[in-house]
């Protein structure tokens, strides 16, 4: 049996997206050209823009197509430096950015780079469930803060933040608000007006669209400076000839999400509860990561005491099951998941963590297969481990 439980990494194309992209393969015109070929491409790009805008409650002109979620996040953080200089005339100079310790590396590493360029970056802590503390945010906000970037749903543990409440505080302090909603859009309702955010990041391949395309919501009237300069595309906000096929795919993907999302949530929650209960019933000394309720219904992150994640991943791979791990060994660095460490899980437990992320095609049969296959694998690894002591799970403590 082949079981794909790694949807937070990427998703298969939705059959409808695939169909539409194949049908559009012949479309090669440059949307910037005035002739028939160009106009055809332009029409399709703008149609997709309407669909994306409609899906998140934005105005069409507030959607900028980009090459990835990472690019969108880089764009927002990097424009902060421009807002502090002469790229954006009239903008106020503010010297500080606030973000969290559990962001995607594309935010964290860009923040480090900005730090080298004179920007002060402050990092919000999270509690044991991965939630930020609004009081800590209130303490950090001040006249010097220009931008706050907090991810809506965490990719590793699925924890959801209260973006609307955070945005309200940020705006009261005169700063701009960005949320990386790559893992949230298409899984939980996202409406930019309800959230109030100034910038929001979307990626196509996390929601059954193609890779290499994403969208950035930029609220009308907020300061902006392109990351990729030198073209009039996207109203001068992102140079480079548009990825027409990818954009068309993204448009269709959000359209399908709009149709399928509402009925999916309950089913997904049942699958997650079954998986969680199944693991809990058959394996001792485990720790569930992430928030028990404010979390993506499709993501379950578990730490297994005394075992190392890469070996679990590879033994599962041999059984046809795809998952991912917060272990350092799988990534090539020596540090385990920064997200788990931020929630106070100790390094040893973080090394033994596995993320199961389900998707629209995940069936109860697949969940049952995983529940069947996993316990003997954990048993087997623990049997050869120096680190496993039955009942010896040290509770994750800060």
């Amino acid at each position, binding site marked *: 049996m082949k079981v794909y439980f790694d949807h937070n990494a990427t998703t298969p194309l939705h059959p409808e997206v695939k169909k539409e992209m194949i049908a559009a393969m012949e479309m090669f015109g440059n949307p910037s050209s005035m002739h028939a070929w160009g106009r055809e491409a332009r029409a399709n790009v703008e149609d997709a823009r309407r669909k994306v805008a409609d899906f998140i409650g934005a105005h069409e002109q507030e959607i900028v197509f980009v090459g990835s979620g990472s690019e969108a996040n880089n764009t927002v953080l990097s424009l902060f430096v421009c807002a502090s200089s002469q790229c954006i005339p009239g903008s106020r100079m503010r010297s500080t950015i606030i973000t969290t310790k559990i962001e995607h590396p594309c935010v964290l590493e860009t923040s480090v780079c900005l730090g080298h360029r004179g920007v002060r970056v402050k990092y919000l802590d999270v509690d044991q469930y991965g939630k930020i503390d609004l009081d800590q945010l209130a303490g950090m906000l001040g006249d010097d803060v220009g931008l706050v970037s907090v991810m809506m749903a965490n990719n590793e543990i699925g924890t959801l933040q209260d973006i609307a409440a955070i945005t309200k505080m940020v705006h009261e302090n005169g700063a701009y608000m960005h949320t990386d909603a790559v893992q949230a859009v298409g899984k939980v309702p996202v409406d930019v007006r309800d959230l109030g955010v100034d910038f929001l990041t979307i990626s196509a391949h996390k929601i059954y669209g193609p890779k290499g395309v994403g969208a950035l919501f930029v609220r009308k009237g907020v300061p902006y400076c392109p990351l990729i300069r030198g073209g009039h595309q996207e109203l001068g906000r992102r140079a480079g000839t548009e990825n027409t096929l990818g954009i068309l795919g993204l448009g269709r993907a959000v359209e399908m999400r709009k149709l399928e999302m509402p009925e999916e949530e309950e089913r997904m929650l049942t699958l997650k509860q079954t998986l969680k209960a199944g693991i809990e019933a058959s394996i001792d000394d485990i720790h569930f990561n992430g928030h028990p309720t404010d979390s993506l219904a499709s993501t379950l992150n578990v730490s297994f005491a*005394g*075992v*190392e994640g*890469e*070996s679990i991943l*590879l033994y599962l791979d*041999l059984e046809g099951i795809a998952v991912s791990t917060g*272990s*350092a*060994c*799988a990534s*090539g660095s*020596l540090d*385990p998941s920064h997200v788990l460490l931020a929630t106070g899980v*100790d*390094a*040893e437990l973080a*090394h033994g963590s596995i993320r199961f992320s389900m998707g629209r095609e995940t069936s109860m049969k697949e969940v049952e297969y995983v529940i069947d296959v996993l316990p003997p694998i954990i048993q087997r690894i623990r*049997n*050869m*481990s*120096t*680190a*496993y002591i039955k009942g010896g799970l040290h509770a994750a403590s800060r």
Partner: protein
Amino acid sequence: MLQAGEWAYSDTLKEHFMNPKNILQGENTDDFDGVGMEGNLQCGDQMMVVIKVDKEREIITDCQWKTYGCASAIASTSVLSEMVKGMTLDQAFHISPKEVAKELGGLPDHKIHCSVLGDKALRAAINNYYTRNGMADKVKQEQVKVICQCMNITDHDIEDAVLEGARTYFELQERTKLGTVCGQCKDEAEVLLEKFKHIHFGV
């Protein structure tokens, strides 16, 4: 279109991971003549190697192990346990991580330290045997030289950092904090950096 590629690991390594040899069953090590443990859980790998020795001939007759770690850590200890059976203590003591990696059909660069750890655990077990049998004089202390006096960083720390991916002096500093106080050890550290890069990666 290409089909799913092979693992980042060799077939031999995969075989040792799927069917590890000589796993120590249970916690009891009383039947063994030497016990060695290396690594730590916070870093994600730890290995224990236990040996039985033919005392007349000083030959290793059995070698078992437990490992907490990734696939290459498990396979490294497994293959090592096969390699040392029948070897004299002296031969076994001098097995290098390179030989373990070679026996496994190669290891990815960032996994070399897994083979280093098994090797260290084996030497610890052999030294433990000597100590237990009144041959403390035979215990071979690894020659360690402190390079950075301020941060107490040894040549072994530098070797480990290289095995874990450090290729430049800056990366070496990032990993070990060496030379971050007075900076006097820079020249010596750079020589060792080049030496270990050459030994382990041929560059």
